[in-house]
């Protein structure tokens, strides 16, 4: 039971962070299919810093530096999307797909290069961070980490930014009707850059949280196993609203955790469903929800359409 709670909370944190990232990007008018790639890069940034930080670093410093590294890596990577989608008016779905493939390929090449340089016979794509990972754990021996708290704080911050600040409201205007926003003096291009970069920040952090969930080493060949896409489902299920995204993340995180630990429950074990069933469930639920509610979708109206100052 305890294990289920731990995993639910950690997966919820991951999904919530990444889905909030997607939420910012889409509210600014840019579809971010590349969340998966952003997560991988954030994870890579965090893992590399953990690898090279001296072992005796103070806990607080360690947390701050690693989190910043992951966020920075995510932001830098998200610029690939921002430049292509905003300046060059590229097809956002295509760019996102390319970013997902590039994320795994590039991080595998980087990690393998580092490993091979250290030891010529080591051709794995694995980074170990047993020691540094302990810095994030609140209660030793469990998976309760500071990330959960951080995710909660960022949820509240996201809500406040989106609905209570001038910046957030302007951001959303750019996703709903960029021409109108432009006519009252909002720089649509800048706002979209901000939206995509925030999604890079949150996505990168989400990637870091994911690779520290229950493990102390990560094989970058595996990417993040579809969590970016699951977060996309969370965002849609959460109707592009932070508070609803939190609920959706909790639900989906619960199912994901269940697929890991369901054998610990007698009544679930007796049902004799394969673990793949629990993995599948979140996707099926979001598909059904989409089918029912999509007629009056809450999606930002102008998302996916490149903004051209000259068009009417």
């Amino acid at each position, binding site marked *: 039971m305890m294990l289920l709670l731990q995993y639910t909370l950690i997966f919820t944190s991951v999904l919530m962070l990444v889905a909030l990232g997607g939420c910012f990007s889409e509210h600014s008018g840019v*579809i971010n*299919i590349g969340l998966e790639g952003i997560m991988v890069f954030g994870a890579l940034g965090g893992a590399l810093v953990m690898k090279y930080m001296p072992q005796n670093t103070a806990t607080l410093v360690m947390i701050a530096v690693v989190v910043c590294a992951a966020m920075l890596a995510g932001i830098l990577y998200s610029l*690939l999307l921002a430049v*292509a989608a905003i300046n*060059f*008016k*590229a*097809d956002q*779905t*295509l*760019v996102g*797909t*390319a*970013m*997902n*493939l*590039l994320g*795994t*390929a*590039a991080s*595998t*090449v980087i990690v*393998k*290069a580092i490993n*091979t*340089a250290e030891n*010529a016979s080591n*051709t794995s*794509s694995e980074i170990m961070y047993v020691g540094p990972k302990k810095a994030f754990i609140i209660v030793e021996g469990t998976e309760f980490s500071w990330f959960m708290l951080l995710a909660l704080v960022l949820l509240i911050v996201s809500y406040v930014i989106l609905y209570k600040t001038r910046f957030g409201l302007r951001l959303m205007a750019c996703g709903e009707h960029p021409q109108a926003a432009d006519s009252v003096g909002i720089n649509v291009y800048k706002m979209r850059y901000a939206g995509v970069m925030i999604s890079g920040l949150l996505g990168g952090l989400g990637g870091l949280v994911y690779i520290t969930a229950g493990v102390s080493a990560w094989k970058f*060949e*595996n*990417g993040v*196993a*579809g969590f970016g*896409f*699951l977060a*996309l*489902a969370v965002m*849609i299920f959460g109707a592009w609203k932070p508070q609803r995204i939190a609920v959706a993340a909790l639900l989906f995180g619960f199912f994901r955790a269940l697929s890991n630990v369901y054998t610990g429950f007698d009544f679930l074990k007796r049902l004799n469903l*394969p673990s*793949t*069933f629990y*993995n*599948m469930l979140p*996707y*099926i639920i*979001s*598909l059904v929800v*989409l*089918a*029912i509610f*999509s*007629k009056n*979708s809450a*999606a930002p109206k102008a998302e996916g359409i490149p903004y051209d100052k000259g068009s009417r």
Partner: protein
Amino acid sequence: MQAKRAQVPLLRRPMVQTLIASLICILLGLLVGFIALLIINPAGASEAIVSVLKNFWAYSKPEKQLKNFGITLVTTAPLLMCAVSVLFAYKVSLFNIGAAGQYVAGAGACLYCALALHLPWFVCMIAAMLAGALLGAISGVLKAYRNVNEVISCIMLNWISLYLVNTLLTPVKNPTGKDTYTIASQNPGGILPSLGLSKLFNQKNMTIAIPIAIIVCVGIWILLNKTRLGYELRATGLNKNAAKYCGMKDRQNIILTMAIAGALAGLGAAMLYLSDFEQWAVTQASVPAMGFNGIAAAFLGGLNPIGTIFSSYFIQHITRGGANVNTNMYCAQISDLISSVIIYMCSFVLFMKQFMNKRLDASESKSRGKGGNAA
């Protein structure tokens, strides 16, 4: 003036522009790959990029060259089908990111039919197409009747089909590993016939997949450009409301398009798995990249079925070539890196074309300016 207009300058022709843009994408991709190699280890970088590009030519013996050329072709057929699937849907303004999932469904269906039901190859192949078509049709129905964005529904279906297929194929898994049985060991009749191609290439996985793939490719080109159905589908894609106004069944067309696209991706899976080249690992946690690479091949090929044949081959050529790099210094994923940079660059193709046209306009108006404004 009339005579002049008929003769479009070479650089103005869409085909030429597409070709130039694709070549720029490839060059930039190779450049990034080369820079990455240089950073990792400058000593062997040029040798490595050459071996990526050479692929089978790196071998000295002709038999080995032919064998490796064969392997490249075996993996080209499924990629080509996925690319045509993406392309077909894109011509109807649908982004079939679900080619990956339809490919998975096809793999599941054909392997189950071959290994569990011991059916002959053509039945397995049809099953794969039906499974892909079903998955595509689901996205189509959701798009046509419930206004669900096909990209989103396809992503969900990709993962649903991955987990379903993993479950479905677990009973035919080889107990000693995580892969399914080879078809040769269970049901030799399930393997695609080779009609002598395997002997010709000295490569046992070489089957009729490649000729079929090329025939299908040409068939899709004819369907899109020379038939009434193709015209209607493209019209629906360009403007759904106008097509409806002209009496075309817009909803039915969307569903049909997705179903055909799905069948193509499913067929691609059958071409790889029924040639026994690769087995399905039932524990795999991510959707195979074949479908996503299909997106790359489709765009690199300039969204033209014939161009796609070349781009699919090129991507598999460098992927296969990546296996030849010196693994003491580099890793085979360098070619994945190159091909993903190429896809990224493909998203700039529209911009490149606009840029070319702008430059041409500028130079034309300059030369015309001398002759006065009479024209």
